[in-house]
């Protein structure tokens, strides 16, 4: 029997973990870009909001934030809906987990993207403005593509951490592979075996991710720059 009959469930759980992590990464990258632009914007209120966001989220453990947001999000939503006299809608647990993880790692992405934006050679921006490009054209055509190169190692790091944090969603009650391993281990009294199996799966994810990252970095890394040493 494939892993005492639990093999299929573990693979399903592994697929769920990867999906949650992947969607959360999309949310995190989007929030990170918005946050970085907010932090670098000339408008002080935007800068303030972004700074509060990153400081708060990065100083609290992700597990605590996950529990706080996951359980409070529905309650908060209900209160808002009640205030408007509307029927509130139910938050899907997987969607909530994705949103929570994305929100947390969006703060880390903000810092990475901010550093990456600031690493672009100023000459590029000056040349673009000299050509008469509007602010949005500069952003879309010059800054974003260039920034992505510098951001890649940092984002790759965040992805690895996010993938491991996705192992915590079992504590929110979701049925990922950690939960399946616990149930399988308790049912068959072979806990050590199943925990080693999921550890191996996580390790495989990590190794695959870092290989993919190295490949991406090689394709998109900046040309070796001549530096006066």
């Amino acid at each position, binding site marked *: 029997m494939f892993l005492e009959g639990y093999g299929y469930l573990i693979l399903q759980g592994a697929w769920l973990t990867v999906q949650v992590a992947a*969607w959360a990464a*999309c949310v995190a990258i989007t929030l990170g870009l918005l946050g970085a632009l907010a932090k670098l914007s000339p408008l002080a209120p935007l800068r303030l909001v972004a700074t509060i966001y990153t400081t708060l989220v990065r100083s609290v453990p992700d597990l605590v934030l996950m529990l706080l947001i996951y*359980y409070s999000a529905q309650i908060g939503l209900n209160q808002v809906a009640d205030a408007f006299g509307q029927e509130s809608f*139910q*938050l899907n647990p997987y969607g909530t987990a*994705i*949103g929570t993880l994305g929100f947390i790692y969006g703060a880390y992405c903000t810092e990475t993207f901010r550093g990456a934006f600031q690493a672009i050679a100023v000459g590029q921006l000056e040349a673009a403005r000299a050509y008469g490009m509007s602010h949005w054209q500069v952003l879309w055509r010059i800054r974003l593509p260039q920034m992505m190169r510098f951001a890649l190692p940092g984002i790759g790091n965040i992805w690895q951490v996010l993938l491991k944090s996705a192992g915590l969603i079992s504590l929110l009650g979701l049925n990922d592979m950690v939960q399946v391993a616990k149930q399988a281990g308790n049912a068959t009294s072979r806990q050590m075996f199943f925990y080693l199996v999921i550890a191996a799966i996580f390790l495989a994810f990590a190794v695959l991710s870092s290989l993919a990252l190295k490949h991406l970095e090689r394709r998109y890394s900046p040309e070796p720059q001549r530096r006066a040493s």
Partner: protein
Amino acid sequence: MKKCLIGLMLVASPLMTWGASEELRFGVDPTYPPFESKRPDGSLTGFDIELGESLCSELKRRCIWVENAFDGMVSALKGRKFDGILSALSITEERKAEIAFSNTLYDTPARLVAPEGSALQPTAESLRGKRIGVQQGSVFEVYAKRMWGPKGVEIVPYQSSDLTYSDLINGRLDAAFDDAIAVSEGLLKKPIGKGFGYAGEVVKSPEIFGPGTGIGLRKNDTALAGEINQALERIHRNGTYERIASKYFDFDISPK
């Protein structure tokens, strides 16, 4: 970038599900056989599950089972993650302050379980200095913390009962305090439960344990409460309750 935006919208849509009125959502923590547990293929089984399904068919609604940790049940119910708690939830005064209950479903006793041959009794003097495992958020935790905790007994709460039994088996706990039937199904009747048995007699405490378990409901859901109580009466009268109960228990567990 564009893919992420599309992805965001795709993510957002399943985020919202409007509750349909032909459905009845029950919150359950399926780590508590024989009342609620999970088969290896992931499907739910147990006395509460079958009871819930029979109530739903009486009410002509579809049962949706939402899994939730036991200690977060009441918060999740108030947060409208589901409409009722059907998870061996005892009716107690503290809980009645937060939520409403249906009529009593069943009443099962509480007992201490320990390695066979240990002379432990469910009293503070006998348990002094020992580590007792209980499920967090349960009436057994309340009883243990109130009656034994102040007298030098170490009470260790766990997220779910199966974690308690694991630690009892590997020796981290000296005893566990839980529902007698749950202990019997979850531990004693299994091969890993060899060498363990009940320690002492049934522990009675109507003020802490209440009259039995019931379906937890939101306080303002009076219409639903009425419907459920009527359906409960019907399944008692037409024998469905006894039929399901006799599958799981060889004694009468209906409320007195």
